[in-house]
């Protein structure tokens, strides 16, 4: 059954193809190709939402993306609820379920609408002037109330099951906007063979040809021409045509963000289709063909449902076959609304009257309206609208005052003129210029390689538009080196509109109780803007922020120019002097999902795993995140908690041996005849005399003298070093080294290669470590004489090449076995099997931390924090005293870096050996002092040491090395802990176990 307001045969939809849908629980029938808006209007539903502040009933203002009122929630299922969807954009599908928002208990009876009655109190910026007493009431009472009343829809509360896709694209000519201008520009460019992308936000191309019944191009109806032209473009290999795609952001150097809505219009999108697709396009040239947006008239109660833009009513009729009323009134200040009246009249709809604010307009549309018998009133204004949930009348008065006349209507179509859509142009950092004659901002100075054509450029008339657009498309192609050879579309008939007005019409009145809306969604009225000016707001940005004009979800597409004009008039200044607010991305709201694209779940950030990871996983290891790496933290056996596991691991390592996956350590191969010279400059230590086959612990500083990284470096050959870095520091250390090599020391013949991932590294530490490794090694003499502590050899293990380091981060005899990564797991398993014979364990990063702390070995980034010098850390011994240069040599002797009283790294023992300090706890000298206390340091590392049978800690303490034996205090919330300052070595102070 055809809906009541659908006119049989009218429009372009196939009216037999029906789709059922619901709104607020009521079922309706629509037609395929409808928007939710056109389908509701076909059913006579105008009441669609409530406004933000006053909760006034609202209907559809527009038929497009500029819609401020018709925001609904679309619910596919419990996880796929989308708030604030514009019903004028949402395409209908069978089964669509929509709900109104921001009302309680129902759309037609909304309790909060009482705010409308209290509205005189809720003037612009009222909240800045009250709610201040008593002080606590803001947070506890007023703010929660305001918050509950504000907001529009309801945020989803479940993880989104849909997915979002992304694509980078490049083209020669990007055409934004697929109306007549955009299509013409795309045709011109495409015919030259250059790569073209044509984009339009609507489901079908054509732009204003959707409603312009008077346009004829190449002997076709304008809309039909658009379809055939786009069909032709789609067949061309060099052209990509994107519908339902919004260009939301124009960034530097012709980089444009597009969001394509892929499946929101489908009944069953299926699992593979993304919901949306982000296109990030780099274009050599951009053609902006973004059209213009009609403005409403600003008069009293101009927000009643049924009052809408004239072009919207025309779109609903000419495209969707829907009439917005039976007896419509028209209120206009320009010609375009006449066409709406004429089309409706011709479709059999009653047109009560046209009210034209202009005194003596002339032109063919006016003649035609008269000829059709429509009442036309010049020099008159609609001073208010009647009705509440639906407009019921318009009251007309001569614009300079006089007798009122009330005309019953069920819809009012308005047009104050057209605002060129310069949003993207402005985002491109182009400067708009005000044309005083046509009262519009149009593109002025360009900042990027782009050009505006058609209505967005202030070009009137289809013929002129197509001429301009085609030429621009051809020129864009020519600019990138191709010449046009096609045929320009010929305009056979077109509509021509003259100007309009900006600001408040007489009906916005001096009457202070009148609500003449400028910004519908945010409930900003003409008098709010005047009030802002009276309160000293002279910049349009202040007016905007004070009144919130243009800050709603439509971002002022219909309201900005009116607001500006009213502010200018109130200030008594010309419009350009008051200025236009900045246009910011996005053009229309875009989902977070479309921006995020693939970067969710496992693709949020790479998870790096070592070659040995699967083994650790099988052993039930618990992992910790270190940068992007997953590292085995500890290996609990059945029934063990972390504490028990770590204690066992620590004891086992010192008793027999332990295996540790050290693969994540950064590794850099430094190769070239000047390798040692380079090392001398990048590390504090001396390197020239390090024998090949030997290792040294190196410290790297930043130029400011603070410790940047550390690690053991092995010299494999006179010209080859194997450098290790911290896990997290690997990329930045490499960058730091490259920076100096390329820009400060380019004369050095040396190259750097990251080999972090070439080698899996298995640390075998403990008295039995050699016994475990030796049986598997070939070609390396493992004796203490041949392979002393801090040495490195190349050979084979399990038949696989290895770089075998003898080194220790535990204080025990120890080795680090480097093998090619793909062999890492198998070599680990072989070592594990050997280890089992000796009772060895696998240990994780926590035990590693404890073991090294027992020996007072520091961890850069934990015991140092970017403000610690080598001296502070007790590492002066690692600074080459005879060196004349290295990075950091000057920075580390700045006055405050060598001053007395600096924080120095020391050991701490709690008086009660059972008490384990908290890492990060602060240290004071006087525990009795009042807060704020003077803090003299903090605990950097702290553990229970099963090997020492007590807790141990490292700390940075002011003048720490002069405080040996001193008692200090760690005040905790419940108790103050007494500690004694000690040396940093807690276990095997003489270091005998390195060879034990």
């Amino acid at each position, binding site marked *: 059954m055809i809906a009541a307001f659908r006119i049989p045969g009218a429009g372009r939809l196939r009216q037999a193809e029906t789709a059922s849908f619901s709104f607020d629980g009521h079922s309706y029938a629509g037609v395929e190709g409808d928007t939710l808006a056109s389908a509701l209007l076909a059913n006579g539903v105008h009441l669609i939402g409530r406004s933000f502040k006053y909760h006034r009933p609202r209907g559809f203002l527009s038929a497009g993306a500029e819609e401020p009122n018709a925001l609904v929630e679309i619910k596919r299922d419990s996880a796929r609820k989308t708030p604030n969807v514009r019903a004028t954009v949402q395409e209908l599908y069978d089964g669509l379920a929509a709900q109104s928002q921001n009302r309680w208990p129902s759309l037609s009876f909304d309790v909060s609408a009482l705010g409308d009655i209290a509205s005189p109190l809720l003037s612009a910026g009222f909240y*800045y002037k009250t709610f201040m007493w008593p002080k606590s009431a*803001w947070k506890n009472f007023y703010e929660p109330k305001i918050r509950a009343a504000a907001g529009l829809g309801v945020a989803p509360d479940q993880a989104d099951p*849909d997915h979002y896709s992304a694509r980078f694209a490049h083209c020669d000519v990007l055409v934004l906007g697929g109306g007549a201008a955009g299509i013409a520009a795309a045709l011109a460019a495409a015919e030259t063979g250059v790569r073209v992308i044509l984009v339009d936000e609507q489901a079908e191309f054509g732009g204003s040809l959707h409603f312009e019944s008077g346009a004829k191009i190449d002997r076709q109806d304008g809309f039909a021409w658009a379809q055939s032209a786009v069909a032709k473009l789609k067949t061309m290999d060099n052209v990509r045509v994107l519908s339902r795609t919004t260009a939301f952001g124009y960034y530097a150097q012709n980089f444009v963000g597009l969001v394509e809505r892929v499946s929101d219009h489908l009944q069953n999108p299926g699992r593979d289709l993304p919901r949306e697709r982000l296109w990030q396009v780099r274009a050599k040239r951009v053609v902006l063909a973004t059209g213009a947006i009609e403005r409403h008239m600003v008069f009293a109660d101009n927000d009643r449902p049924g009052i809408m833009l004239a072009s919207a009513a025309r779109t609903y009729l000419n495209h969707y076959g829907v009439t917005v009323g039976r007896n419509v009134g028209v209120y206009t200040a320009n010609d375009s609304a006449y066409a709406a009246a004429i089309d409706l009249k011709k479709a059999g709809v009653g047109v009560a009257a046209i009210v034209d604010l202009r005194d003596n307009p002339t032109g063919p549309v006016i003649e035609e309206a008269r000829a059709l018998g429509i009442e036309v009133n010049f020099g008159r204004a609609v001073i208010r609208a009647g009705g509440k949930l639906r407009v019921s009348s318009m009251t007309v008065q001569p614009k300079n005052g006089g007798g009122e006349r009330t005309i019953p209507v069920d819809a009012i179509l308005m047009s104050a003129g057209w605002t060129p859509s310069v949003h993207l142009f402005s985002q491109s950092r182009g400067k708009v210029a005000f044309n005083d004659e046509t009262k519009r901002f149009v593109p002025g100075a360009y900042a990027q390689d782009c050009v505006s054509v058609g209505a967005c450029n202030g070009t009137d008339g289809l013929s002129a538009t197509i001429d301009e657009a085609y030429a621009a498309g051809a020129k864009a192609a020519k600019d990138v080196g191709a010449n046009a050879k096609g045929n320009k579309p010929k305009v056979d008939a077109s509509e021509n509109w003259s100007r309009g007005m900006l600001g408040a019409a007489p009906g916005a009145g001096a009457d202070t109780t009148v609500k003449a809306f400028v910004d519908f969604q945010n409930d900003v009225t003409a008098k709010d803007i005047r009030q802002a000016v009276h309160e*000293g707001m002279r910049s349009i940005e202040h007016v905007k922020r004070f009144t919130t004009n243009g800050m709603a979800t439509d971002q002022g597409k219909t309201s900005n120019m009116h607001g500006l004009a009213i502010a200018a008039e109130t200030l008594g200044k010309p419009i350009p002097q008051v200025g236009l607010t900045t246009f910011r991305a996005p053009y229309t709201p875009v989902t977070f999902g479309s921006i995020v694209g693939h970067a969710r779940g496992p693709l949020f950030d790479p998870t790096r795993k070592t070659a040995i990871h699967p083994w650790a996983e099988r052993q039930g290891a618990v992992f910790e995140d270190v940068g992007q790496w997953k590292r085995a933290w500890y290996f609990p056996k059945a029934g063990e908690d972390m504490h028990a596991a770590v204690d066992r691991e620590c004891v086992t390592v010192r008793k027999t041996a332990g295996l540790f996956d050290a693969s994540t350590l950064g590794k850099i191969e430094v190769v070239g005849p000047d390798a040692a010279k380079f090392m001398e400059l990048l590390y504090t230590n001396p390197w020239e005399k390090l024998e090949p086959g030997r290792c040294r612990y190196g410290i790297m500083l930043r130029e400011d003298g603070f410790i940047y990284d550390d690690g053991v470096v092995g010299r494999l050959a006179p010209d080859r070093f194997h450098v290790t870095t911290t896990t997290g520091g690997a990329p*930045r250390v490499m960058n730091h080294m490259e920076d100096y090599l390329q820009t400060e020391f380019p004369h050095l013949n040396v190259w750097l290669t990251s080999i972090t991932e070439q080698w899996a590294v298995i640390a075998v530490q403990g008295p039995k470590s050699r016994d475990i490794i030796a049986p598997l090694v070939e070609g390396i003499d493992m004796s203490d004489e041949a392979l002393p502590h801090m040495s490195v050899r190349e050979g084979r293990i399990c038949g696989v090449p290895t770089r075998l380091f003898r080194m220790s981060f535990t204080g025990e005899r120890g080795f680090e076995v480097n093998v090619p990564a793909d062999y890492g797991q198998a070599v680990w398993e072989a070592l594990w099997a050997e280890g089992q014979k000796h009772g060895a364990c696998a240990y994780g990063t926590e035990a590693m931390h404890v073991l090294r702390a027992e020996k007072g070995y520091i961890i850069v980034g934990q015991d140092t924090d970017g403000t610690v010098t080598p001296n502070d850390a007790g590492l002066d011994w690692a600074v080459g005293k005879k060196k004349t240069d290295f990075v950091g040599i000057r920075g580390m002797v700045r*006055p*405050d870096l060598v001053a007395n009283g600096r924080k120095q790294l020391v050991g701490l023992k709690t008086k009660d050996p059972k008490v384990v300090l908290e890492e*990060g706890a602060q240290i004071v000298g006087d525990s009795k002092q009042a807060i704020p206390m003077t803090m003299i340091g903090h605990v950097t590392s702290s553990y229970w040491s099963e090997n020492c049978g007590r807790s141990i800690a490292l700390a940075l303490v002011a003048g720490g090395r002069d405080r040996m034996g001193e008692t200090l205090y760690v005040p905790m919330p419940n108790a103050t802990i007494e500690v004694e300052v000690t040396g940093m070595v807690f276990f095997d102070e003489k270091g005998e176990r390195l060879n034990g």
Partner: protein
Amino acid sequence: MKKYSVFAIAREAMRGHKGWEEQWSSPEPKKEYDVIIVGAGGHGLATAYYLATVHGITNVAVLEKGWLGGGNTGRNTTIIRSNYLYDESAGIYDHALKLWDGLSQELNYNVMYSPRGVMMLAHNVHDIQVLKRHVHANRLNGIDNEWLTPEAAKEFCPPLNISRDARYPVMGATLQRRGGTARHDAVAWGYARGASARGVHIIQNCEVIGVKRAPNGAVTGVETTRGFIGARKVGVVAAGHSSVIMNMAGVRMPLESYPLQALVSEPVKPVFPCVVMSNTVHAYISQSDKGELVIGAGTDQYVSYSQTGGLHILQHTLDAICEMFPMFTRMKMLRSWGGIVDVTPDRSPILAKTPVPGLYVNCGWGTGGFKATPGSGHVFAHTIAKDDPHPINAPFTIERFRTGRLIDEAAAAAVAH
């Protein structure tokens, strides 16, 4: 200055809100003032306000090249907190926080300071160490900051994803309950109104194009697009443009200016009760009174005064937001914008006298200056009035970069090992 109150609103409602006076006047500049403040952002206006109210210096001009509050004051994500690590930072930010509490009453302007709590998330062991270090230091400095388990964090902020399966699971959080947000425009307007009522001249659309100095080096005034304006004391509070102004006086600064972006979502009903910050995944989020999710992004990597930034920076931020709050992918970004933040090498501000007599500078707040507004203005007014820093801002000198006495909060957070 007519007092604002609910009664004033009711009175005005009766007469159509036509009786409101200007919130601030827009006078023509005089030839000379006692003090010129360059920059009518929150910090500059607060400085002028406290010069007038605390020090009785009212012959003051605040010069603004654009519109007041139009720089970073009107572009930031309005997060307020004071749980900084070092005594120096804690000192100045907590001084500010104490002033926030009561600022609406002080100014008779509702700045909507909302102590809804600022939560900072720990995602790994290293984060825990760093954040606990803050908690302990804060406690001994008398600053509230408490440690929360993941479960307690979720209870405080229900949308938070604390799944162990998250890429970077939440392992705990700190909470400063006195932290929160305020209405940025109201801060600028409230201070402007208060200063203007006490005789301070706020002169907008007046760009400083030169700093004049006497033969002895001392400041004598500034050249502007509206002519020369004399003053023996000039305070530069120009945020991203601070080094540009200081260069005019011949002082080269340890500053670089970067684009910083932020965005808001469409407004929705209350869903997000506090402020959540994560340094590890780089995300900062709260919900405004209007219902918009307010989200701070990071800086671009290059010096720029363009007030725009790259889309990939917003992507990076929204990736993190949607990781922590997976229900927000269907939310829509309504508006994004950029500011220019001036960053010092240690990411702490400079609030100090300069080598030029009569020239003072308040800059380098980087990405976090809004929260300091009242405190910064208060001590900077002191510094100008007394020609001597207040004890609270005494550590924030320019000279610290020469001597090495940095206040490096970021370095103290270190990087994962």
